[in-house]
């Protein structure tokens, strides 16, 4: 199968291509430089005037796993308003805040996304997460294993186990749970909540283990680095949502010791305590720190106004947030001496001072962080807003006059306190291409993804340029997945399965001896059953494994 995308205006930041008119050839799922003279083109697309980018990649989106499934069960009323009937091609489902898995896959593809990463997979819930991801069609998937509140790691830290042993455990976890990266959520805080601690600052010890969040951050970020895993430790820091947490976040950055760190949904961690309401923006300080510390990358976790639901591993903070639940119902769960989860529905209102300022803080971060290679476009779906709001968010970033109009609608005190109105930056298409595909692919170490040079996997999105960026991005003209046309004019025309990205860093298999002893003593399942076998993913017929390389393991 040979496909030609003719005369496309190409945005391919990995290869430094900015709005150059080119032909792209696809053969058998990959981009090639030029077909042989005797080859016939099977499909020809005349793309004169169309913008072409690699398929978009969402580096942080909660699309599968136990807490999402609880959120689905919690909110039938949210689903009722967005029914999705079956078609000749597609399964039925439902949408809005936490869509059914098939609907999530279709809608992501219809927005030009070809890969989505579930950022908080509990190891004890890995099997179910992969089952849900397998039932999410169209896009490639991957998951980050959540560590840092598991009793096994805390016992290691308490007993002063050396870094090498921690590295073995982290590598084992990555393999046993079929993960791509490691996430830490409120480091140690989920565990501390089980001992009835209600808040935890970065240097505050766990009442049982005496271990601090900073020790956990250091141990895990070193482990990820020394194991050669490309994506840095993915950090949901301490004190999410707490006014004044800007100091915690700055302390996290400053304490990173030059080790790579990805700070996720940083908007929720950029709050000051100034002003009459003791709630202010810390975005300028955070942006300055991110600009200065090249080892740090972030994603924003922009909030958008409207109904959504927050689903997080951070039971400590979710329990505290339940007083704002709207509608007033919520879930918290302690899980398997591993972690936990909290599900709290939220309605962000533009006339609410705090919500309005949260919205502005997110935009300030987008506009003040200089390097689009280190800031990724996310709403922390569904926590800040459903991913379906991305086209609107892109317009906010690309169109100052539109942004100013929206600013007039929010709580006037929040608008007055924010610098958004004075920031004139408008993102270019090239920068959008960086932050939504090139940079996430690079950060995650997805070889052959996120760019359009020969050899790349042919995940490609074609947009019809429009002066309204929201119009342009909400309905791609064409989307190709692995070289097959899957979406035309914003509608699915072919259903494909996608695969699951993983890494396989090496570890000393001796680690399993102690793990087995631990499981036999304390757990309610056996170590052998804990591990998700390759065949559980590959034998389904609706998923496959894509193993990404790691650098050679180094010793500390």
């Amino acid at each position, binding site marked *: 199968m040979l496909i030609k995308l003719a005369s496309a205006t190409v945005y391919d930041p990995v290869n430094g291509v900015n709005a150059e008119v080119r032909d792209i050839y696809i053969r058998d799922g990959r981009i090639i430089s030029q077909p042989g003279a005797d080859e016939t083109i099977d499909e020809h697309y005349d793309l004169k005037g169309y913008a072409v980018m690699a398929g978009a990649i969402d580096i942080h989106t909660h699309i*599968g796993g*136990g807490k999402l*499934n*609880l959120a*689905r*069960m*919690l*909110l*039938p009323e949210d*689903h*009722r308003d967005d*029914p*999705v*009937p*079956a078609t000749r091609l597609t*399964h*039925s*489902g*439902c949408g809005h805040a*936490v*869509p*059914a*898995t*098939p*609907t999530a896959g279709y809608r992501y593809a219809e927005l030009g996304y070809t890969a989505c990463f579930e950022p908080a997979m*509990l190891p*004890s*819930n890995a*099997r*179910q997460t992969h*089952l*849900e991801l397998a*039932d999410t069609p169209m896009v490639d998937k991957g998951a980050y294993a959540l560590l840092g509140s598991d*009793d096994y790691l805390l016992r290691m830290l308490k007993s002063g186990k050396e870094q090498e042993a921690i590295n073995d455990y982290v590598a084992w976890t990555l393999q046993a749970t079929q993960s791509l990266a490691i996430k830490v959520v409120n480091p140690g805080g989920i565990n501390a*909540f*089980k*001992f*009835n601690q209600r808040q935890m600052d970065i240097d505050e010890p766990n009442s*049982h283990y005496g271990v601090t969040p900073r020790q956990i951050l250091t141990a895990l970020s070193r482990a990820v680095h020394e194991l050669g895993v490309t994506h840095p430790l993915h950090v949901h820091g301490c004190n999410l949502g707490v006014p004044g947490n800007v100091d915690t976040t700055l302390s996290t950055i400053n304490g990173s010791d030059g080790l790579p760190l990805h700070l996720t949904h940083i908007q929720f961690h950029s709050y000051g305590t100034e002003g009459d309401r003791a709630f202010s923006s810390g975005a300028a300080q955070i942006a300055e720190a991110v600009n200065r510390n090249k080892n740090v990358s972030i994603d924003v976790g922009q909030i958008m106004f409207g109904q959504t639901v927050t689903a997080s591993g951070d039971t400590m903070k979710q329990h505290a947030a339940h007083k704002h*639940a709207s509608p*007033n*119902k*919520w*879930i*918290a*769960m*302690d*899980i*398997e*001496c*591993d972690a936990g989860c909290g*599900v709290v529905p939220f309605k962000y209102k533009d006339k609410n001072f705090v919500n309005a300022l949260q919205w502005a803080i997110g935009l300030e971060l987008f506009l003040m962080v200089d390097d689009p290679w280190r800031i990724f476009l996310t709403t922390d779906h569904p926590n800040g807003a459903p991913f379906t709001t991305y086209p609107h968010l892109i317009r906010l970033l690309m169109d100052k006059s539109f942004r100013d109009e929206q600013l007039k609608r929010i709580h006037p005190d929040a608008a007055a306190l924010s610098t958004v109105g004075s920031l004139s930056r408008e993102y270019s298409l090239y920068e959008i291409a960086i932050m939504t595909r090139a940079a996430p692919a690079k950060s995650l170490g997805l070889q052959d993804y996120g760019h359009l040079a020969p050899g790349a996997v042919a995940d490609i999105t074609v947009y019809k340029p429009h002066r309204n960026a929201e119009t342009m991005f909400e309905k791609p003209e064409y989307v190709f997945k692995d070289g097959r046309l899957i979406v035309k004019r914003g509608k699915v025309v072919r259903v494909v399965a996608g695969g699951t990205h993983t890494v396989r860093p090496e570890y000393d298999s001796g680690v399993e001896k102690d793990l087995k002893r631990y499981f036999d*003593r*304390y*757990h*309610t*399942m056996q170590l052998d*059953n804990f591990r998700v*076998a390759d065949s*559980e993913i590959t034998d389904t017929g609706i998923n496959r494994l894509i193993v990404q390389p790691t650098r050679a393991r180094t010793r500390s």
Partner: protein
Amino acid sequence: MIIERSQGKLKVIDACCPRAKSVIEQTPPELQPRVNGKAASLDEAIAAAAGHLKKAERPLLAGLGTDVDGMRAAVHLAEASHGILDHMHGRAISNNMRVLQSRGWMTTSLTELRNRADLVVFVGTDARQFQRFYERAIWPAETMFAPKPAQRQLVYLGNGLKAPTSGAPKGIKSSQLKCPPEQLGELAGAVNAVLLGQPLNNRVASIKPDAIEKLAEQLKNAKYSVIVWAPGELPDDTAEHTIESICNLVETLNETTRSSGFILGGGDGATTATSVSAWLTGYPLRVSFARGYAEYDPVANDTQTLLDDRSVDAMLWLSTLASERKVPAGERKLPTIVIADSEQCLESEPDVFIPAGIPGVDHIGTLIRADSVVSLPLKQVRDIGRTRAADILQAIHARL
């Protein structure tokens, strides 16, 4: 699980779920597909089943005792045939789910319970139907944080409930407050009221105020209490109120200490069916595809109601987890397809009978545990040529 094979027979030689043990050690019955009571090939039976579903305007796909793949196939078949999905424990699932959807809850999972609980309060259940619960969660050999398992306080609220004697360590601390099952909600509400500082002047559910105050005190002083309920063991009329009261109590306790609910249930694949339905359709069970998309109605889409009201015109009963549950029937006979691991569910000859394998015995599979967190990979231990329910359902689907 360790299984030994000698002289063509399987024997389980270590501790495991007694139901699994009995199924594995039995000599499997000879079973053949049947259409209208007559032996048929698998292909003929599948064609006949598809014929009934094609003719039906509103089929019911019920029982749903199956693994993840079986449930995936059942959801897709219900979608394609505009059918309705309900599980054999649909009433218990829905009573519980309605509380989740009205107020949410704080719960815990099995390993947390095992390692942390210093006080376990059983409401309307003594968990004896869940045979390995005590061994795995209440009285394990050791725990990470909780006092020694024998020191764990066990309190039973209800009638005729007590800790089992077999397997119990010496010197266990258990007590009971006698309470009619219909009044458990009032009792939990009274404990909550005491914790909220409201004076209790009269008996509640015939229990003296000081006994209720003592329980409130125990809960308040516990570091990590767990309140256990089994939705299927609560009286249908008052289950929702009871569960809601327990959840209110847990929420109050968490203002000052830690406490969690624990839901006992999920048997016969109930949690698996509910979870798969939730991710594929957005809703837990009871779901109807009558209008081409999933609609959730935990009251209307009840198997027995649908059969009695004649709101469905065909039924597919799926039961492959060695359940003793009989195929239900309404007054009027409907075209009935039974896909099951044995004939023990049959009370009369269905129009189509298709034998299917048991996940974890006849084929590999995955089941989701009652706490909705952990899922278990199941192995194959014998090969007697039984087909997977998922394959049967997909084959029927392909013929629609």
